[in-house]
């Protein structure tokens, strides 16, 4: 198990390195950078000299490999550089917004998992009944309705019935739990719907697969009660693929947050990402991409290790 773990941890390095190379050079393929947006953005005429000076100050005039080297060396010491726009450290920029986004993500996960497990299980157990059809329509809806539009519908409803508009500032949960929860439950619901749909579909299909296995028939044949067959034999085996989906979708929540935070006017990671993209803030984009990739790789590692714990064949073959 130890060897397997070390092996898997070492495999993370080339992936992260690849991500770093990819994002760094991708951003610099086409000429044009933050300086032009910063200085010429509002239509003012600026001399080439000023632009060159600003470029020099930000280190954008140095050869690409030198810039990349500096960035890599910095990252090795956990220094991600400064945002080119605000000039504050990338870590500070991200840290200030992480709390909000992480809370929305965790709430969305709770909503999604708590709804998806009963939905997926019921749909599989009562296959082709009205329950199954309802779940299938609801879940395909979850895959089709854009989370930002769903968020807008929630806002529209809240406005029409309760005359409620999202507050402008964020209240942390330790300051005022009620204000915090009433603010964040809606975006969590908006991103959680898709998450729930994906998970419920996965649970349904993997449960259907497990239910046709021989050991289920054996369990039924030896007289185990149906309740135990489902909870002990079927669900336990069907949940492993579902855990994979839950884990992967959790890392992919950032995709939903990018748009949903815009709708609810939340100053989180998603909004920071969109801002840095529209400003061509290279260092901040790079920092956030590395954060997302690192998060994804870690969650993947967790899933792999979990599989290895549950299924000894994996750790022996590796």
């Amino acid at each position, binding site marked *: 198990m130890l060897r397997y773990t070390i092996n898997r941890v070492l495999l993370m390095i080339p992936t992260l390195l690849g991500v770093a190379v990819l994002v760094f050079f991708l951003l610099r393929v086409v000429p044009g950078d933050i300086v032009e947006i910063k200085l010429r953005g509002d239509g003012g005429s600026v001399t080439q000299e000023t632009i060159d000076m600003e470029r020099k100050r930000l280190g954008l005039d140095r050869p690409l490999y030198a810039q990349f080297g500096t960035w890599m060396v910095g990252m090795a010491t956990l220094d991600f550089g400064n945002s080119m726009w605000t000039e504050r450290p990338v870590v500070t920029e991200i840290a200030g917004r992480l709390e909000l986004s992480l809370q929305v993500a965790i709430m969305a996960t709770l909503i999604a998992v708590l709804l998806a497990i009963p939905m997926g299980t019921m749909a599989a157990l009562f296959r082709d009944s009205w329950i199954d059809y309802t779940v299938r329509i609801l879940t395909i809806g979850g895959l089709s309705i854009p989370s*930002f539009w769903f968020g807008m519908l929630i806002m529209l409803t809240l406005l029409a019935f309760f005359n409620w508009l999202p507050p402008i500032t964020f209240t942390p949960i330790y300051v005022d739990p009620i204000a915090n929860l009433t603010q964040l439950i809606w975006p969590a619901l908006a991103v959680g719907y898709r998450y729930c749909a994906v998970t419920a579909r996965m649970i349904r299909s993997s449960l259907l697969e497990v239910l046709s296995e021989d050991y289920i028939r054996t369990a039924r044949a030896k007289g185990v009660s149906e309740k135990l067959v489902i909870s002990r034999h079927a669900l336990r085996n069907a949940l492993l693929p579902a855990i994979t989906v839950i884990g992967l979708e959790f890392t992919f929540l950032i995709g939903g947050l*990018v748009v949903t935070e815009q709708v609810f006017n939340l100053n989180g990671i998603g909004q920071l990402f969109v801002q840095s993209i529209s400003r061509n803030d290279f260092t901040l984009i790079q920092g956030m*991409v590395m954060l997302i990739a690192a998060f994804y790789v870690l969650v993947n590692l967790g899933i792999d290790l979990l599989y290895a714990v549950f299924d000894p064949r994996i750790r022996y073959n590796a």
Partner: protein
Amino acid sequence: MTIAAPALPAIKTRQPSMFGDFCRQQPLGAVSFVVIFAMMFAGIFSPLVAPYDPLEIDFASLLGAPSWEHWCGTDAFGRDICSRLIYGSRTALVIGFTSSFAGSSIGAILGIASAHFGGKIDDWIQRFVDILLAFPLIVLALVVVAAFRKFTIGGVDVNLIVAIAIPIIPRVARVVRAAALSVRVMPYIDAARAAGYSPTRIIFRHIAPNVVAPYLIMLTAFIAQAILAEASLSFLGLGVTEPTAAWGLMLSGNAADFYRQAPWMILFPGIAISLAVFAFNLFGDSLRDYLDPRFKV
């Protein structure tokens, strides 16, 4: 003496039509096809179908509620929302289809190459795929948008198509590789190799046709994703720009300022996006059940 062969009665062999067969087996798929067809019709013949010019600004009817003249109401510039939705289907389809087609095709080629050549090439392609897979589709698309900036050819946002196509590549490559790997060990491939066929011939004549099913399924499924991605990017102000009619764009910016006065500005474009994505998702699902029931996306 010749014996005339008895004239065979003309047997009308009815070729089982694949389309009819599909409709019978997958009624939901047929319904989704009708929606897709209607959307394509609206997209291709927008000028004929749309009651108004989508760009025509009419200050006399700002934020007009849905009425007989304007079925879906008008927006903050007095533009007819219904017409903008119809023209928007053109944007959605062009970007959705091209990016999904480009992404899926490149992905399929990479997947087949990876499976066929194996070894070092396979390792490199898989590493590359792993790296691209570390991002949600929309996040990678955003990074590519930042990299390529605005770039249009003939009014079509090429940068947007590239941005949406790139995240599709690794997802298709992985599935097609798996499918191609299972084809590669089939006896008929050995037979082809034994017969001395060139690798190119084996790839194109023997492997490729057998991974067409997953390719088609992924292609339709990713049209849905691509339409969703285009709507999201336009919503964020990083995709299609004004005054072009695009569904996501119609929901962005000032649409949200009019929650109270003009909820129709938010309702209809969202319905259009959801319906389109729903139809392509459902169609992809039905296609999968029809072509290859064991296959999972």
